[in-house]
């Protein structure tokens, strides 16, 4: 890394400014927006999306996608919930989330990688399968009012810091190191750029793709543990919109939809911007029905600008010192 700000490029700066602008705007529009309680509620509401989004960043980066990740999280949440119901130690139940997620991620990855089915099609199919799985597991009844053991564990956290913060921070750091400091990074980006070329270059395409799905699965499972801890509930419709929200946040963050370029910081900022907008709009008296409209328009705007830029000045985007390299891993 030549420039210490290398990981913080134009898109990331834009998002950071947008987040600050949103905070400023909503502070003016609503007297209840800018206070510790509300802002910490926004952060609390972001935890699952952050974890799932970071996983999705890898998948989009490698040229894949997983639209089943939300319902898959539902399955992992059932595992956690059932263990809590059975009176298992909350630490064990909490760890069962990532473990179950890892297994589900491996299953999803196997279908995509070894089934040689395009990821979007395969995971759309798995969406139905996992949804049916939730249905069969829950039998039409929800897990409600689960024991508070895990909730207390997560809330108390370490030295008064809720467990979500170190979890997200460690996840970010681990992914940063994996992408920047191990062959996983260049392999993932090479495959995302062109699977065929990566194969010719001797990259183990299948292994790298599987790894991306497994890591994404484990993170989704971790999110499931947080979901159960926070809501003490697993409903039939769990995770229905999570995958789409995650994809929106990741793309907003500057990761390429078609692969070959990732930004972890972008994903984090993308999630925060989405959640800030949802919260701030409601507090400013905009009905919640408009929230998806606003976030949808935001996404379209960003992608539109990107497409226009790409057409107009691919050369400048690619030029080594001309601003952000379209190519680099921006962590």
């Amino acid at each position, binding site marked *: 890394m030549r420039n210490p700000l290398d990981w913080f490029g134009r898109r990331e700066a834009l998002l950071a400014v947008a987040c600050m602008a949103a905070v400023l705007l909503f502070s003016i529009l*609503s007297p*209840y*927006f800018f206070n510790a*309680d*509300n802002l910490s*509620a926004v952060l*609390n*509401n972001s935890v*699952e999306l952050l974890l799932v989004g970071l996983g999705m960043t890898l998948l989009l980066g490698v040229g894949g996608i997983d639209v089943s990740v939300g319902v898959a999280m539902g399955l992992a949440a059932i595992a956690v919930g059932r263990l809590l119901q059975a009176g298992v130690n909350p630490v064990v139940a909490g760890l069962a989330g990532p473990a179950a997620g890892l297994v589900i991620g491996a299953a999803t990855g196997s279908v995509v990688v070894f089934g040689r089915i395009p990821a979007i099609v395969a995971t759309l199919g798995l969406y*139905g*399968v996992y949804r*049916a799985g939730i*249905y069969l597991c829950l*039998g*039409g*009844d*929800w897990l*409600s*009012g*689960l024991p508070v053991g895990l909730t207390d564990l997560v809330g108390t956290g370490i030295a008064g810091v809720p467990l979500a913060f170190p979890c997200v921070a460690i996840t970010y750091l681990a992914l940063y190191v994996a992408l920047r400091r191990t062959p996983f990074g260049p392999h993932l980006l090479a495959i995302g750029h062109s699977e065929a070329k990566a194969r010719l270059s001797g990259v183990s395409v299948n292994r790298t793709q599987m790894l991306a799905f497994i890591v994404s699965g484990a993170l989704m499972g971790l999110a499931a543990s947080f*979901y159960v801890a*926070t*809501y*003490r*509930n697993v*409903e*039939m*419709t*769990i*995770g*229905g*919109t*999570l995958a789409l929200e995650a994809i929106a946040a990741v793309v907003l963050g500057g990761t390429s939809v078609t692969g070959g370029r990732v930004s972890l910081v972008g994903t984090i900022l993308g999630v925060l911007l989405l959640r800030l907008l*949802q*919260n701030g709009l*409601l*507090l400013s*008296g905009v*009905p*919640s*029905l408009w929230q998806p409209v606003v976030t949808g328009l935001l996404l379209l705007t960003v992608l539109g600008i990107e497409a226009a830029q790409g057409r107009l000045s691919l050369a400048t985007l690619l030029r080594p010192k001309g601003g952000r390299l379209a190519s680099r891993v921006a962590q």
Partner: protein
Amino acid sequence: MLKTSKLLLLSVALLAATSGLATAADAKKKVAFVPQLIGIPYFDAMKAGGTAAANKLGVDFIYTGPVDANPVDQLQIVQNLVNQGVDAVSVSVLDASSIAPVVEAAKAKHVILFTSDSDAPNSGRAVYVAQATDEGLGDMIIDEMVKRVGPDAKIGIVSGEATASNLNAWIGYMQARVKDKYPKLKLLAPQFAGGTAQRAAQLATDIMAANPDLKGIIGVASSTCPGVAQAIETAGKVGKVIGTGYCSPNTARAYLKSGAFAYTVLWDPAELGYLTVWAGKQLIDGKPFEATMTPEGMSHPVTYDAKTGILLLGEPAVFTAQNVDNYHF
């Protein structure tokens, strides 16, 4: 794979139903109920109520339905029951538009077909056994809220899908009730959470943040109840903000006990199941429904509207920490 296993289950269910018929081929009249799907606590409770009525009234009760709320499967099951010559078949209709031909076919075979729990109004069904009216549900949740927060308070609403007509109808009657009876009560505009607890909790949290003087929150869709309750607990507002919603005792039990929810409003599906089988027996016997009557074995009267053909169970039930453990659905 999924499809075949589903078909397998379906055929097993049908087989079970038909073999049950074969052995019970005696003089007893047969009343069937086809739920929207089998294996969920709500319809299990209706089944229990129906079985109780069958024992009391001396009829055979057949309970069979699709495993995954598939309207085509449901129609096939109803068709089969009609073909087998069951005396009366009641259905909690999944697809109101496709049931009419089956009603015709049933008439030709002198099988009485009627609806229960979910109606198909223009299908020619004999009667609709209704759990509660939208108006009754809307009024009840507001009346119970006013009992707890007084007539001068601010109340938030978290609903599910903005397109769900039953949820919107309930909200409409809530607003009408407030306008008629409690003009000082301020009902905030509904926010729509879709189906997930996460989104419901997010919206409930935001509503509480935007309205520090909020006195209560109503979760309209049952899927929003856990999220609303959890948001109240997380915000440390148990007792300060009264939570409620249209949700089953199983869903709300923990929150009723923690105090995040003071009450919930719904109906008792066991009673509905009882009334369904009673209505079937009444129709087989050719006895008319009266405007108000108390069926044998029930503790309160039910009403019948001859114009719409609706047999109404009555007032919705209110579940609280005190009575919730008597219900299991």
